[in-house]
């Protein structure tokens, strides 16, 4: 492990040596490749980020879901069952959209929710006071609250990742800890997020949208993409192909 001597120089402000400078992380989801009855990405996320316990919550509405999957179809006004069945169903992955203008960060009274330099929207659990204003402000219902402490078995735990205590809000972090990972010498050695790693169909991609060599860049260049609720001007960075 590389040792950076802790001197009095504060690492407070993002300086030139910031590993995040110049990046703009984004996600591309290919709806067409997503298999309807596959939930590998969700399982992987829960395992990686210790949300598995929260997901096993007795009350479904109190559980935390960083990544979830909904099935949608065209709205058909008629009541004919046959027609309804005809309409193509799609499985759509929903995560935090990591907006460029995040309303959650705007309304947070203590700046616990913030947008990182590379565009990832995170919650500082050490600071959150649990007012849940961010959940009200989020147009995507992508924020979740830890209503209760959840008992965790030590063997189920990913010990390098925090578990949760009650009273703080949270959402998908785009596995920032994996993207920021460093190797033995302190050089960046990013890994892809857990959900992307788990997806066998290649439906998910996460990367730097400014980096011309990244998959995300190529996908965004080659395909027409849609974003959710673009009319609100939140500029989400999660893009859908074939929605």
């Amino acid at each position, binding site marked *: 492990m590389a040792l950076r001597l802790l001197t009095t120089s504060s690492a407070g402000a993002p300086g030139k040596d910031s590993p995040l400078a110049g990046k703009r992380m984004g996600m591309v989801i290919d709806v067409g490749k997503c298999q309807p009855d596959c939930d590998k990405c969700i399982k992987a996320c829960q395992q990686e980020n210790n949300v598995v316990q929260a997901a096993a919550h007795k009350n479904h509405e109190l559980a935390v879901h960083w990544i979830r999957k909904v099935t949608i*179809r065209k709205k058909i006004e008629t009541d004919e069952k046959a027609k309804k069945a005809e309409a193509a169903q799609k499985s759509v992955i929903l995560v935090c959209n990591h907006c460029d203008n995040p309303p959650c960060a705007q*309304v947070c*009274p203590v700046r616990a929710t913030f947008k990182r330099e590379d565009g990832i929207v995170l919650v500082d659990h050490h600071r959150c006071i649990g*007012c849940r*204003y961010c959940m*009200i402000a989020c147009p995507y219902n992508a924020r979740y*609250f830890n*209503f209760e*402490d959840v008992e965790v078995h030590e063997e189920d735990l990913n010990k390098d990742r925090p578990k949760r205590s009650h009273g703080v809000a949270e959402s998908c972090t785009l596995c920032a800890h994996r993207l920021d990972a460093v190797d033995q010498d302190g050089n960046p050695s990013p890994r892809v997020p857990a959900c992307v790693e788990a997806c066998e169909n290649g439906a998910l991609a996460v990367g730097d949208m400014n980096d011309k060599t990244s998959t995300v860049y190529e996908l965004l260049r080659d395909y027409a993409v849609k974003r959710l609720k673009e009319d609100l001007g939140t500029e989400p960075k999660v893009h859908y192909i074939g929605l």
Partner: protein
Amino acid sequence: MEIKFERVEGTSFQYRVALLVFGGFALVGLLSTLWVMKYGIGRTGMTNRVPWGLQIVMAVYYIGLSAGSLVISGLYGVFGKLEYKPFARIAVYLATLFLIAGLLSILTDQGRLDRVFVQPFVHFNLQSMFSINPILYNGHILICLIYLWALFTERKRTTTVVATLAFGWAFCVHSGTGAIFGFGARVLYESPLLPASFVAAAMASGTALMIVMIVGLFRATNRPLDDELICWLGRFLAICVLVVFYFLFVENAYRFYVVELREAAHYFLFGGFHSLLFWIGLIFFGLVVPMCILFNPRTGKSIPWIVLASSLVIFGVLCERYVIVVPGLTNPPDLFPGMEIVHDPALVEGYATYSISTQEVLQALGVLGVVGFLFLLGLKYLELLPTEARIHPD
């Protein structure tokens, strides 16, 4: 015209029972809040889809009541109407208490109460209404206290200055509270009319509360009170109610007019329990019946009828606060326009539900208990109530 203010003796059986009841409420509220601090707010009716519940409703309601009380004191303080001087002190005292109640309601609702007293002071976000409002609220409490002091020491010029300041500040406070809900994420919140209609409802409920309080207190302590004063307040209340009605009408008409909002408007008006509260609680009992009473020349001059109308308005505005806060959350955001969600294994599809839990009721009672307790103590130890309130003293 010399007005004498006198403390109540506070030795009667009823007074002690009231003190005991409110004290008990406060204790229950304290215990349930401690429970929440230890175990989290999982036992409330709130969920990930409806993250705000009764406590926020009550906070908004209390802050509104505070505004209205201040309006009554402003009749003397700002506009110099001497015949309302007898009510000035009690009005300002109530305004202060209700603002404290609003703050307490918000406080008890936080997930990490231990951090609330530290983090907001260290990290400040001026873009957030939740950061701006505490300044407005605490400033308002401070101004109210100065106002109270000026009234107690009978400083006439200071009273006028502070009262005017408090009046203006109160408008900021209540617009600020309305602005909490003003953003695009929730269809039913997104309305520039909200702060204005918020102020109107606040005036109505506050005036109504003052009428009930004044009549109740004067009757209970056997102090003479001129009916004419209350009748005038009743007419003022009627106008406020009319304005509230107007704003509600415009808001809903607008929602029906805009195509994108039509579905939400339909949900708001005919969507479930909140629609019941809206039609029965707010429109019928809260606005229509009081207006019938107040605009009727016979009942509009009878004190019991006016008190009845006021009580109904107080209840109606509580319903209004509920239908502001909750339906906006239970109505889900339309993530896929033109599509419908068939299956969502994580969250329940469609409209969410919210039901008030015992836990929240206990906390709300606790806040009420604290305020009621302080109010009773104030009656005993401060010279709040006049010996009489007459337009033409003998």
